[in-house]
């Protein structure tokens, strides 16, 4: 399942309810998941908030395509991808990627693959609101590029 949400989400509650709803009791031996959370510092600046823009339509299509590519490469039972958009505050969860499989290798590798593809290709853009300093008022800054996770 792929979800884009403008409302704050609790990754642990989402994992718990999705896992119950998927009805795979006894089938999955492994769940690997990743939660990305907003930090209050970036490149040495204090960050007060963030606006997450996306390309409605293309975002969902692209995420579905990533998940499909993972399913072709690994033995996967279920996947859950949630991504937040809109106005965020520090400590807000931004993204959740979870993969359930019979054996751990598939879950570990597929969850990281989905996450890296999402970071490098899914059409989202972050704009940070930086803390004002003595000289300058609060200013906004587009994050220029994601770094590789490998």
């Amino acid at each position, binding site marked *: 399942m792929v979800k884009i949400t403008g409302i704050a989400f609790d990754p642990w509650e989402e994992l718990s309810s999705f896992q119950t709803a998927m009805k795979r009791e006894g089938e999955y031996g492994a769940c690997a998941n990743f939660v990305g959370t907003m930090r209050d510092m970036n490149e040495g600046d204090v960050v007060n908030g963030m606006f997450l823009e996306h390309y409605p339509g293309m975002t969902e299509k692209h995420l579905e395509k990533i998940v499909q590519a993972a399913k072709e490469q690994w033995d996967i039972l279920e996947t859950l991808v949630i991504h937040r958009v809109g106005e965020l505050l520090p400590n807000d969860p931004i993204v959740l990627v979870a993969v359930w499989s019979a054996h751990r290798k598939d879950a570990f590798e597929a969850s990281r693959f989905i996450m890296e593809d999402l970071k490098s290709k899914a059409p989202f*853009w972050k704009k940070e609101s930086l803390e004002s300093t003595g000289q300058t008022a609060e200013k906004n800054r587009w994050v220029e590029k994601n770094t590789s996770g490998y």
Partner: protein
Amino acid sequence: MTQANDQMYEEAMQIKVLYFASLKELFGRSEEQLSAEGVSTVDDVWKLVSKGYDVSHQVLYSINQEYAQADALVKAGDEVAFFPPVTGG
């Protein structure tokens, strides 16, 4: 207008163009219906819309919500988008 006249002029192609993030701010608009003449690739569209603007960073192209290379062809009715490198997750 006669059929003969239609064939003498290249008709303007109607496409929808979207801009995101810093490009949206630079251009001061998020979406426009473009009546483009003499364009065949998505890069032709980009040159047309970005003329006169100083775009310093890398620009990515998509056609109908799929990533496209610069030389990908656009046709009437396509949804074309231009945006900076993505920074989600």
